[in-house]
Structures are given as structure tokens and as C-alpha cells.
């Protein structure tokens, strides 16, 4: 009878496929809910039922998060080469070519500057669809240049991560990008320029073991898989099943590894609030900053020219007091919290 059931199921699956023509419907990876593309779009590619956040492209994040038309792409000229002449079944250069064609990006990270509600920022947005959002020489160099740009402009840095880790095809050079980016982030911190790290589904491996985990503020989208080792590797190592919800945003928040979980629909508002807060902090009287800027001149040669950022500080001095009352669901919030997801179930508590 098994064969019959299987055959029937196969038939049903086929019918389902027919009922779901490409481009109209999608099935939620998490809860299986069938979702209209129109509705998905309206919800910024999140499931209305279980709040699962679909993976979206770097350019889509730019559209969602930044002020319209404010984004100026930088460092796109920095691209991968093939230093190890790496090949397995395919050549690394062919993989890059294919990734470029399928994503329209030239690397796994899209860098630039822009504004959010008028507040200037330097942004680096990773794209998982480009070779699993993996970190290698060119991506590392782009991020390094973005960090330098943030130090020189004193505009806050936002890195949104979505990555399987360091890229194998560039071997040890990929690993070294973790040192390169974090060594510069140490200077960013010296200079007193804020760094907000946003973790999305999934962020693992070398990226979590470097810049993604050292933000002054670390935010994550709900239910994102975040960890050092992937679940498969851990399962193989410890030879037991992993607990429900292990390595998801909510688990990390509980373990003290995140500041907040922010629904995609609230991310722009939260970032705007944080940028306003840090802008207010920047205006406080400060003892002279350490010589971050002057000592950096020598690194420009190592890391290419730094463009002057286009962002402008908002004219009216904003108050760092958050708009409260937008989020009745977030009762146990501390005094100075940014607004939390209003429409969505607040996943922070």
C-alpha cells in the first residue's frame, strides 16, 4: 500500500505545483503557509503567519532601509580574482561569473553610503545569493574600505550580514579578511564612531567569528539562524539532536549575544532611532579623539582611495528621546528603548 500512498502523494504534489505558478505564490520555509507574492511584498518578504523572514537581496535591503535615492554605491571596482587557482568539479572563476550573472552584484557585499531619515551612514550589506554570502579578499577589502570611510567621515557604520562564512576558494586569504576587518573595527571604536551589526538568516562561520559579532549594537531579524558552527556540523560532532530553536535569534537573545530582535518592518525605524541617538552623542563635548584620522592616512595606500561621503546631518537637532507609545505590545521596555515591532509579535521578550 505504501507505493499507492506515495503515488497519490506524488500526484498531489504535482497538483500543488500546478496550483502555485511561479511568481504568484510562495510557500513559507518555516510553517508551510502559502503566501501571495503581493501580500509577501507588502510584508517586506516576511510570513504573516509565523513571522519567518525570507531571504532578500542586498539591493532590496537598501530599498527597505535607506532613504529613497540616497544610496551611493562604493568600492564596486574591488572584485575577486582567483589567487589559488582553485578548482574542484568547477573552477572558482566560473563560480564567480555565475554568481555575478545570477545576482547582478560583483561581490558578496554591497557597500556604500546614504541616509536614513536624513541621518548619514556608511552601509555594507551582504548578499547570501552571491556564493553563500561568503567572505573572501574582495569582500573583505570592500568592508575594510567602508570602515575607513566611516572613520574618516565619522558617520555610523551599519553592516548587515548574511553569510555562510569564509570562502573556501581563497583559502587562508579568506580567513585573513576576518583579521583585516576586525583590526580596522578596533580603530573605528578608538575613533568613537558607532557600529551597528545586523544579523539576518543565516549568518554563520567566519563572519560571525569576526565583524558580525562585535557591533556596539547587535540587532537580528526574528528566527534567523546565527552561530559559529552550522547545525549539521554540531550534530555530527556531538551525535545528538539539537534542541528546538537552537541557534535562532530568540535563543541568542536569551543567551545574551544580541541587543534586540527587530522585525524587518521595524528595522528602518529602529536604525533611525539609533542613528539619532548616536548623532546626539556626537554633539556632546568630547575630549580630543585619539589620532584615528591622522594615523589612517598611511593605510589609504594599502586600502585604496576613500570617497568623501555624501550624507548630510539633519538640520534640526533631533531629540534622542524615542517616540514612545508606538508599541503597546512592548510593555517591559527599558526607558530608552527604540520602538519595537508594532504590527508583529515582539520577539524580544
Amino acid at each position, binding site marked *: 500500500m505504501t507505493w499507492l500512498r506515495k503515488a497519490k502523494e506524488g500526484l498531489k504534489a504535482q497538483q500543488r505545483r500546478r496550483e502555485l505558478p511561479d511568481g504568484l505564490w510562495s510557500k513559507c520555509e518555516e510553517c508551510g503557509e502559502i503566501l501571495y507574492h503581493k501580500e509577501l*511584498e*507588502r510584508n*517586506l518578504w516576511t510570513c504573516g503567519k509565523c513571522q519567518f523572514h*525570507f531571504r*532578500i*537581496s542586498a*539591493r*532590496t535591503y537598501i530599498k*527597505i532601509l535607506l532613504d529613497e535615492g540616497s544610496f551611493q554605491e562604493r568600492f*564596486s*571596482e574591488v*572584485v575577486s*580574482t582567483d589567487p*589559488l587557482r*582553485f578548482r*574542484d568539479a568547477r573552477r572558482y572563476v566560473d563560480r564567480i*561569473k555565475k554568481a*555575478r550573472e*545570477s*545576482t*547582478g*552584484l*560583483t561581490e558578496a557585499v554591497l557597500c556604500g553610503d546614504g541616509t536614513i531619515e536624513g541621518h548619514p551612514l556608511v552601509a555594507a550589506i551582504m548578499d547570501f*545569493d552571491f556564493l553563500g554570502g561568503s567572505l*573572501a*579578499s*574582495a569582500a*573583505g577589502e570592500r568592508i575594510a574600505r567602508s570602515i575607513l570611510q566611516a572613520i574618516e567621515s565619522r558617520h555610523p557604520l551599519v553592516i548587515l550580514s548574511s553569510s555562510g562564512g*569564509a570562502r*573556501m576558494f581563497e*583559502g*587562508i*586569504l579568506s*580567513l*585573513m579578511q*576576518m*583579521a*583585516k576587518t*576586525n*583590526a580596522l*573595527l578596533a580603530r573605528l571604536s*578608538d575613533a568613537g564612531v558607532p557600529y551597528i551589526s545586523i544579523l539576518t538568516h543565516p549568518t554563520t562561520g*567566519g563572519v*560571525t*567569528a569576526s565583524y*558580525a*559579532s*562585535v557591533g556596539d549594537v547587535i540587532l537580528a531579524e526574528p528566527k534567523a539562524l546565527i*552561530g*559559529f*558552527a552550522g547545525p549539521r*556540523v*554540531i550534530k555530527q*560532532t556531538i551525535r545528538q539532536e*539539537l534542541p528546538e530553536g537552537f541557534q535562532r535569534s530568540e535563543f541568542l537573545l536569551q*543567551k545574551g*549575544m544580541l541587543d534586540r530582535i527587530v522585525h524587518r518592518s521595524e528595522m528602518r525605524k529602529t536604525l533611525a532611532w539609533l542613528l539619532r541617538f548616536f548623532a546626539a552623542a556626537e554633539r556632546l563635548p568630547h575630549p580630543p579623539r585619539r*589620532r584615528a584620522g591622522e594615523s589612517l592616512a598611511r*593605510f589609504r595606500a*594599502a586600502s585604496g582611495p576613500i570617497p568623501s561621503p555624501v550624507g548630510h546631518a539633519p538640520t534640526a537637532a533631533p531629540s534622542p528621546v524615542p517616540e514612545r507609545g508606538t508599541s503597546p505590545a512592548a510593555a517591559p521596555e527599558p526607558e530608552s528603548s527604540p520602538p519595537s515591532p508594532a504590527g508583529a509579535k515582539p520577539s524580544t521578550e
Partner: protein
Amino acid sequence: MNGTWLDFEKPILDIERKIEDLRGLATPESPEAMEELVRLERKADRLRKEIYAKLTRWQRVKLARHPRRPYTLDYIKVIAPEFVEMHGDRKFGDDPAIVAGFAVVEDMPLVIIGHQKGRDTKENIYRNFGMAHPEGYRKALRIMRTAATFGVPIVTLIDTPGAYPGLGAEERGQSEALARNILEMAHLKVPIISVVIGEGGSGGALALAVGDVVLMMENAIYSVITPEGCAAILWKDATKAEQAAEALRLTASDLLELHVIDELQDAVMRHVRSLIGTPKQELLDRRLEKYLKMGVYLEEATAAANGAPDASPPDPAPPPA
């Protein structure tokens, strides 16, 4: 001679056995045996040179993991017999997979920190095969900060398959522990000399290896992923590790070529002495510069020149409303 030997070492082992046997017979009264002994010793030397010069990358991986290789505490015993080990991260626990402590070498105070593997099964369980948990990396950072407080140079010895991938490690923030060390090591205002003495396994190695100088033993490896892990992902077959080891280019001479390590020698003290007088900011600037230069990439005149659409590509995911 007990212990484990690798297949390609067998010819050397055979001669060494013969030499052992002859030693008992070779006396001044038997000049023939003496001659034979000298001949065999020369042959063993030649064979050793020949075999080790021609090793494949995969064979070097095996050497780097050789169970008879000296580990961190073996080096410490020789160079710093007065070593005083310090314990604990002051947050969660003490991790025996990383040893850290104070030493005085040639009148120079040093902090020495390294991954520690076990020699037998029992010891390996205690040392977790040299795979540290977050508390190991946090202990290392705590003691490195102590070193910086007192201006003491730091020597790190790298020998790990990788940071431990387990439940507790993830719960306690393995990634954060590694990331924090990598960032803080760029900050520490004392000379840092890192030596890859065996296996330099990915982030778990780098988290102790952001040094002013990175040295590597001849038959050590340093890699973004284990050859087995790489093979499992790319070839879908962990037995293709030999091919992966070739592709990854993870030996000391590869890394020298890729400008990741500085030179092939173990003269740690020479580097400590040459760095100790460096002004602190200069030291940090040079360390940063070293890592900024790492990576091989192209700078295209225009992205489009390489056939890459960049200006306004079609969005792979449908745009939001």
C-alpha cells in the same frame, strides 16, 4: 620506538631499526659493523631529507597532526622551564584546551599562550583534542590584557583543528569569543609573536594569531577549513581530503608565498627583542597595516569592463512594495 608512524615515514623507520640493532654490535673490535653503522646513518639522513622535501600537501597535513609532534607544553618545557600557568576566564570556567601563563626567557618576561592537544585518549578528552570553548579564548584574552597592562610581550603557539563546534560552545558565544579576540589582539600595545606549531585550524587558530609576526614551523598547516571539511562540502566526499589539501594550499611555503606568514623559522626571541622598543602606536599601526595588505583582489576600471552588470541590475529577489 613505539608510537604512531605515518606511511611515508616507513623507510626511515626501517633504517632506524637497523641502526638500533647495529648499535649493540658496533664496537671498536668490529670495524665492519662500525662502518656499516656510519653508512646507515648517512643513508637515513639522506632519506629523511629526500622524503620530507618531496611531501605532498596532504602528507604535510598528516605531519602537522602527527601524534608524536611537540605540543605547546613541550615547547614551553624547553624554552621556559619556569612557566607558571594561569587559569580561568573569570566568567565561566577554565578550558584545558588552551594553556596560558607567565614565563621568563633569557631574562625577558613573556606571556605564553597556546592551544594544547593531548598525547593519549585520556589526555585528549581532558584537552578536548585542542579544540577550545569560548572560555578558553576568553581566558587567553584576559591574560593577554594582563600582559598589555604590564608591557609584557606575548607569544602565542597555534595548534588546533578548530574552535569546538558544540552546544555549550554556541550557547556561550563561540563566534563572539573568536571575534573579540581577533579585534582585541589588533589593539594590544605589546609585541605579539604567533607561531603555528602544528595545525592552524581556521577561526579557532586566528583567534590566537593576530600577531605582529606570524611564524610557521616547516611542516605545519594553516587553513580556512580542514581538508576533510572542504572535501565534504565541495566534493561531497570526505575521503577527497587529499585533493582538498592540494587546492587549499595550506602549507608553510604556500602561506609564505601568499604573504600570510613572515618567515620560516622559530627565532621568536629575535622578534620579541626587535619589537620591544617600538613606540606603541607605531606597533599598532604596523600590525594593522600587515593585515590590511592581506587579500588578493582586482580593481576594475569600470565594473562593466569585466562583463559584470553593476549599474542597475535586475533584482534577484522581487522588490518590496
